[in-house]
């Protein structure tokens, strides 16, 4: 089964790009992604540009509007994700626990819907 591991952290923790904190976390992600590839479970993933660059298309009452900014203002934002293929939630939880965070944060695990075939 495929699981999305969505990473939520306060993006301000990094103090921008090319800081020490930023370089450390990038290296740590390279490391875990490498291990996922070795284990043959990695199906996708990416780090995301900060929410200051987000664009949202919202539909309300059938009318679509495109606006600058994230879907919603929150204290911890979606900063990246992995898509992995493992046999059970417990295995997904074990991988989620190994995803690096700079400080406080959360990894939300979402199982994907089964293929319609």
């Amino acid at each position, binding site marked *: *089964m495929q*699981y999305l591991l969505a990473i939520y952290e306060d993006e301000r923790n990094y103090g921008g790009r090319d800081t020490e904190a930023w370089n450390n976390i990038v290296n740590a992600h390279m490391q875990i992604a490498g291990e996922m590839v070795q284990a043959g479970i990695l199906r996708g993933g990416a780090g995301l540009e900060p929410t200051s660059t987000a664009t949202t298309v919202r539909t309300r009452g059938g009318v679509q509007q495109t606006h600058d900014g994230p879907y919603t203002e929150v204290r911890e934002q979606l900063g990246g994700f992995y898509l992995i293929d493992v*046999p*059970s*939630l*417990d295995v997904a*939880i074990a991988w989620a626990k190994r995803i690096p965070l700079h400080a406080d944060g959360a990894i939300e*695990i979402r*199982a994907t819907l089964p293929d319609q075939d």
Partner: protein
Amino acid sequence: MRMAQSKSGRHCLIKINQVSDWNALWRSHAASLLAALAQRLRNLDLAEEALQHAFEKAARHWPDTGWPNDPAGWLYRTAWNFALDQSKHAAHVAAHAAQPAAADADPAPSVQERLATFFLCAHPALSVDTQAMLMLRFAAGLSMADIARWFYSDEQTVSKRLQRAKHKIEATRISFELPEVDIWTERLPPVLSAIEVLYDRSYADVAGSEAIAAYGRDAEQLALTMAELLPDQASALGLASLIVFAESRRSARLDAQRSLVPLDRQDPQTWDGVRIHVAAALLARGAAAQANDPYVVRAAISAAHAERRISGRTPWRKIAALYELLFATTAHAPARWHQLLALAYAGQAVEALEKWRALRDTASDAAFHLIAADIHHLNGHAYERRAHLSAALRYPLGSAERQWVAAQLARA
């Protein structure tokens, strides 16, 4: 404690046209059959549906054919064959069913299967209440109506919550496998705390119906099962000991007016000596495994109270020391409150009150005020005692507990 049921033969002589016989049949077999079917089918819904079908079929046929020699085996085979016949599930069963999984398999779940059921129901990805509901259903075999009474809820709500939990288990593929032993330290606490939640609900309302008392015994049975399945785990042994000690005092906790009798005023000769013996043996094994495990320490506190049955007096100093140890390992504020109360009973009322006043805890439940009332009482402070007793009444309490507090207040 419920008597062990023999797997076969036991019910052959019973005439089965009475509802109570069917209830007895369900009570003695449903839990183990559900656990076995769920584990082997790898599907909780299908296990329930199949067992329901088997009981319904038994109700139609047994009055004519007489009871089979092996009712559990008959129910298991009927349920298993029904599950296989469900075409929409056939592919699922073929793909996921555990081996060996045949109609002629032992209808009683193995130790591994029973343990795996507990771990599945109390998976940390499920909410604590949901864990308890699933355990009542699949480890204790309770009906939806009984579970609803447990949670002061209605059947429809409980059924919806269980449905959601079962969907999550299936959709996110929560594993039916027994987790590796090395992660039990992480996974065992939710299992034990779900059993504790079950027990607390029955303990808190001592004057509750017979059904509530029966639930206390269900929780006791689950705790004993865990202790039997995990004979080296201190916390499993400690929880079982703790619950059996508490059950040993159930009948002594209520007086003729259905008002609470607090522990220190109970007649120890009315306690259940057999249970005390069983609980003490569990405690000894738990303490040998890990003496400072919080469940073991709490059981040791119960054991200290039980000493009064023999010696005629409560060893308050020992109890204070055990609560101190409990607070040191858990940092759980009520442990500190009880430590000070025990100190007050041990003849150090003034010192206990000084330390109580130095606490920075804020009142959050009736227990806080009841303990404060007792410490003030032991210091001869009638005014403060009254204030704390009235404050306690502003929090939720079982009917017997409320009656007792109100009576204290009236007399104070």
